[in-house]
């Protein structure tokens, strides 16, 4: 058992660079489809597909399918749990880096 305060742990699910880029993008908008995420993150199709599956399985992002002009459209958006996780992640990073000199 650790003695006294410890260095906070970082959420490894969010800490992965590709996933963090996707989440940062989704945090800026209400929702976006796969193509938009692909274009704006610069990730490969395969990589993005894998990361979205992991985020969806963890309940960080939700997926919604709808028909627009009789064509299917699948969009991703941050879940409430995802927003909370991002807020916690930001707090953790800030507390970790706060003592670091500018």
């Amino acid at each position, binding site marked *: 058992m650790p003695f006294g305060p410890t260095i906070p742990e970082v959420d490894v699910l969010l800490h992965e660079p590709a996933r963090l880029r996707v989440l940062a993008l989704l945090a800026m908008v209400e929702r*976006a489809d796969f193509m938009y995420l692909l274009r*704006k993150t610069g990730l490969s199709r395969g990589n993005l597909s894998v990361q979205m599956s992991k985020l969806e399985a963890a309940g960080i992002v939700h997926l919604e399918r709808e028909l*627009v002009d009789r064509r299917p459209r699948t969009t991703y958006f941050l879940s409430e749990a995802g927003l909370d996780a991002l807020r916690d992640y930001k707090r953790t990073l800030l507390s970790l880096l706060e003592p670091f000199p500018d």
Partner: protein
Amino acid sequence: MANTQILTERDLFRSFWDDGLLDILTGMALLLAGVGWQSEIGALAVVQAPLWIVLWGPLRRLVVEPRAGFVRFSLARRKRITRGLAATLALGVGLFAVVVLAALVVRERGALPTLGQAVDGLPAVLVAVAAVLAGLLTGARRFHAYALGLVAGAAVTVVFALGPAFPLVVVALAVIAVGVTLLGRFLRAARAFREAS
């Protein structure tokens, strides 16, 4: 140190308008308003303007979204843009119509040729006001350049008595040219992206 550019919501929103579609439709509305002005339609030429803007949504879904993807911005952003665009449209079309009618009345009476000549520049100035607002709302600074072009065109038309349609048609052609260039660039970039991914 690496030169990194941080992507912000504002940048995302600005890039949303970079495909040139809005420019082409705006240019077409302006061109038909100018051309119609010279014909017997006169002031009624303004009525067709909103129809072009209505086409933007379906055309974006057809041409842009399959290549650039779909995004929905935050509710606050969407409310701001919807309110702003509606106000811009109402202001632009409303003022335009008022000035058109005023110009027609002045011409009909034929008593104030100097004022009539000055009024010829007003439609372009009013459209320029709408262009400034559109630029502020979309973050697309080129709309401010269009506004400058319209004001310059208005000045030229007043000085040389070229008629109210002149600045509208000239700037419309420039706006369409910019739009076509942007759309071409967008389609080429989309093709390159598809081939690379």
